[in-house]
């Protein structure tokens, strides 16, 4: 196998130590870099129980006062992340890049962007994170490179150079007309004319991001070499960007092709063989039926983002009814037992509306886009707090739903303190402003001159750093940050949130979203399909589980609501409210009544009745 190394060697600081394995990236050697020790805890399915935290290194903390967040800064804030209680960090692309697409236009796969530090900064960061039991995954763009990448620079020079067929070239721009243009407001075609080579090249995203040609085995080898390189170095996995588009076929949309799945299976096999307990997280903005294919039979990606769920969560609270959520869960097929959904409220991209119907998209846009500048591509570029008009009760409710639905939640940096956004910034930068640490200069993000900052911090009276920052939140025990930390700790005590089955609880009130998460049968063989919508066996199995099921009841309405829950399958269980450990009246034989305040929610552990307080009121009705 041959892998092209970048022309310039990565700059490495620090002392060389034993370097057994970081060498297999095409046989290249990286003197001075040592692999990190992986976190001991967690086991093979750590990703099914963990809480992820998406972080923009550039925007998190600036350690060297140059106005740009960096890896050393990220390391300096590990205390905070450990205190918050997240299990895995997802780093947005840290590779060298002309930065025309937030770093997703990679120009060198084998080192870090000089703005962010050096390769050994990353290693030290990984070491420190792993010592704290925090894992780290990173974005990897397999579909394309920057047009500045040496591979493309060489490929475009002629039609017969060694990299001539590393990208997808054609004589005209008429091939594969069925493939949609993803960024419709920027690009008019998936083909762009290259003056130098006198041919068109294929790109599913921006024209400065030519797609790699996976028909060419050398490209496959090269990209697998990239994966090995970073896993050798100690990364715990990848978020694979834009995976549905790796291949093209005549007469198809070029999405979700069998060849793409075959390649992912091959990648998974390689990863598992040499790097067990790592994770591949697919970004595929597809409908659930297509999404599940990326799990394969438990032999492709470990995780997939559940994109269609996210806009439905917002729609449900706006409509004050559960059906937008329950519908999409009902349409979500079962997934293998060794896989997991990644679910989120907001991320670095726009609130994606690709996977809602046109009518619903219009509705979401009408609801949330008060200003046309807020609209980006097919979605909405807002952070969580402004999307909710700053309503903290709603933010808590949505987090409670996120943390209790099947899947591993992903928190976007800053959302834990309900940071705002800046819609006047270009493209997707509106939600990539600096993390607000304190009311000090530049929000405590950097001691550089204000003008030097990569993006200006928020300074408006509502969401600006003087009003919203980590320091103020940490000092205030009733802040959203403390609430979030508290509920994360509670969630951790109940692995059933990550690995349990899911059963909707019937309730006639449409504003109530209620479900029970129950422990998986212990004998469940790895790889057996698991469905998000409703467990096949359903209900509690008091004879087999040690863990109790957890009942989650959420009021999606701004008004107080009654909930008559059909808990027949959990009859005689004694609910204990999780956040306060408050015993509630036992479940009788029929319906169980609770009342919820506006946007209120309860999580109940459904303990075996013999542990219930005999003096508690007992007819299944609350006072």
């Amino acid at each position, binding site marked *: 196998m041959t892998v092209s190394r970048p022309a310039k060697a990565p700059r490495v600081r620090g002392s060389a130590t034993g370097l057994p394995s970081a060498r297999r990236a095409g046989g290249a050697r990286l003197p001075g870099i040592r692999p990190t020790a992986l976190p001991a805890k967690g086991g093979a399915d750590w990703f099914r129980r963990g809480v992820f935290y998406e972080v923009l290194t550039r925007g998190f903390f600036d350690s060297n006062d140059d106005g740009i967040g960096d890896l050393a800064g990220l390391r300096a804030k590990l205390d905070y992340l450990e205190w918050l209680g997240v299990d895995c960090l997802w780093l947005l692309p840290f590779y060298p890049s002309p930065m025309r697409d937030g770093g997703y236009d990679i120009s060198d796969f084998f080192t870090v962007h000089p703005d962010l530090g050096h390769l050994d900064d990353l290693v030290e960061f990984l070491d420190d994170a792993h010592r704290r039991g925090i894992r780290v995954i990173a974005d990897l763009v397999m579909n394309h490179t920057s047009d500045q990448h040496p591979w493309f620079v060489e490929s475009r020079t002629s039609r017969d150079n060694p990299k001539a067929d590393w990208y997808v070239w054609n004589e005209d721009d008429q091939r594969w007309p069925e493939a949609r243009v993803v960024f419709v407001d920027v690009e008019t075609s998936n083909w762009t004319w290259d003056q130098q080579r006198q041919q068109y090249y294929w790109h599913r995203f921006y024209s400065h991001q030519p797609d790699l040609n996976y028909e060419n085995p050398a490209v496959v080898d090269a990209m697998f070499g990239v994966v090995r390189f970073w896993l050798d170095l100690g990364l715990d996995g990848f978020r694979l960007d834009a995976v549905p588009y790796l291949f093209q076929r005549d007469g198809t949309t070029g999405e979700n092709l069998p060849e793409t799945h075959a390649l992912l299976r091959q990648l998974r096999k390689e990863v598992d063989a040499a790097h067990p307990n790592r994770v591949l997280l697919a970004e595929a903005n597809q409908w659930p039926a297509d999404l599940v294919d990326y799990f394969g039979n438990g032999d492709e990606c470990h995780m997939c983002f559940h994109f269609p769920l996210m806009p439905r969560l917002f729609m449900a609270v706006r409509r*004050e009814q559960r*059906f937008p959520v329950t519908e999409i869960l*009902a349409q979500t097929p079962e997934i293998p037992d060794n896989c997991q959904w990644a679910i989120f409220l907001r991320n670095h991209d726009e609130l994606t509306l690709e996977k809602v119907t046109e009518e619903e998209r219009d509705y979401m846009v009408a609801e949330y886009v008060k200003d046309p500048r807020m609209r980006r591509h097919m979605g909405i570029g807002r952070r969580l707090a402004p999307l909710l008009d700053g309503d903290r009760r709603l933010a808590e409710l949505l987090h409670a739903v996120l943390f209790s639905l099947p899947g591993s939640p992903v928190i976007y940096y800053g959302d834990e303190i309900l940071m705002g956004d800046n819609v006047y910034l270009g493209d997707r930068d509106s939600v990539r402003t600096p993390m607000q640490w304190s009311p000090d200069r530049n929000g405590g993000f950097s001691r550089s001159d204000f003008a030097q900052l990569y993006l200006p911090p928020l300074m408006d009276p509502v969401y600006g750093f003087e009003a919203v920052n980590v320091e103020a939140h940490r000092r205030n025990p009733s802040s959203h940050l403390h609430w979030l930390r508290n509920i994360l700790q509670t969630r951790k005590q109940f692995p059933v949130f990550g690995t349990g089955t899911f059963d909707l609880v019937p*309730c*006639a009130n*449409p504003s109530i979203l209620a479900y029970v998460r129950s422990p998986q049968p212990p004998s469940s063989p790895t790889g057996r399909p698991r469905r998000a919508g409703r467990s096949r066996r359903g209900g509690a199995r008091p004879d087999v589980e040690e863990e109790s099921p957890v009942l989650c009841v959420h009021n999606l309405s701004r008004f107080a609501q009654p909930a008559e829950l*059909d808990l*027949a399958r959990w009859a005689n269980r004694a609910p204990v409210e999780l956040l306060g450990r408050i015993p509630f009246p036992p479940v009788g034989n029929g319906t169980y009544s609770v009342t919820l305040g506006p946007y209120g929610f309860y999580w109940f552990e459904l303990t075996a009745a013999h542990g219930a307080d005999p003096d508690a009121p007992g007819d299944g009705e609350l006072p």
Partner: protein
Amino acid sequence: MTPSGTGVVDVSDSARAALAELVTAYAARRSGWTGGGAVRVLDAEVLGPGRPGIVDVVAELDDRLVHVPFGLRAPGEEARFLPDGDDAVLGSFVDDEGPAMVFDVTRDAVVAAMLLERVSGEVVQASLVRHLRDDKASITLAMEDRIAFTVYNEVVDGPRPELEVFFALDEVGFNHLAAPLALWRRAGRDLGVAQELLAGASSGYALALTSVRDLYASGGPPELAGGDFGAEAHRLGTMTARMHLGLDKAFGRRLGDVGEWAAAIESTLGGLAPHVLERPDVEQLLGELRVLQVSSQAIRTHGDFHLGRTCRTEQGWYVVDFGSGGQPTSMAGAVRAPDGDGGGPVFRSPLADVADMLWSLEHVATTAADERDRSGRDGLSELADAWVARNRRAFLAGYLGVPGISGLVPPGREALRVLTASFELVRAAVHQARQSEG
């Protein structure tokens, strides 16, 4: 009687008298039933021999037919009755197996599960049986979270019209129904039905009210309110059209005379709400109706189609209740049977169902506005009007957008508007009349 076997049994005079006593005891405890009348046992069937066992009885009580499945347990045998079942025990009974404690089957989960198995073959866990609905004429049990088992306590000779419609629609592939699993029929009488339980369903009325409530709290155009109902109203319209196409396929159609309908509408309004006829807008509408030169199809309709007859699940909208059995709330838009004997099912314009639902949309919005804004100072009636206008449009767009529906409704927007509005007037008058009576 012969309790060791199953099947319809000859009832001895003494057993007949004992069963009649039990029916009387049952009637006395059943809310909404008039007790005290003479009971005559017509037939009895042993559905579960031994103990616990089931004896199912149809009897005449006063001038109607009643149906009671009795559960039998040995005296002292432990029975765990469902909630509200303290008075489940009705008396005692002696047969060849000895004495038995007799109770209402629908109060005992174990025996109710047994009954379901006997009549449908479905096996369920008794621990997951609970009461779902209990009205004057029937009791519905939820069996696990998958079966709704309805036992009719008031029965009729011959098939129940609502079940006829229900099974016919299922037969022609209309799938906005809780799928039927089994029909319990004996001696030509429908005694019960087992069907798919729509777990997690919310009634259409509750869903619409959620939307209205949200609009009244936030104000502004309804299409921009968080709880906008437009998309749901559109889907509801689509389902309604599919229901009509299904009814057409199942029962066929007849050609209606709009002139006759105009006369019937006027006469109905004259009978129920004569003051309405004096309103200038009504006068104008009826004038337009009289001169409509169109013909229109009539089909078996739902007959009493409103939000409360529908429900929403994560699978979409369902029609949950054909309680009217296609017998309409009024004869406006009806077509007489060709034989002209006046009996049999009524065919009428599908727009009558459409009008019922449009009236229902208006009813939910205006009622909620009146409750919240008695003085009218908060301007909720304007919001209600806007909500109604938006959702009417959405419902009609959904209805008329279904391929094939144009063959069932009169051609032209004007005819549609005039006919529908006229049926709505009748529906509102019927509602008023019911309110005055009730």
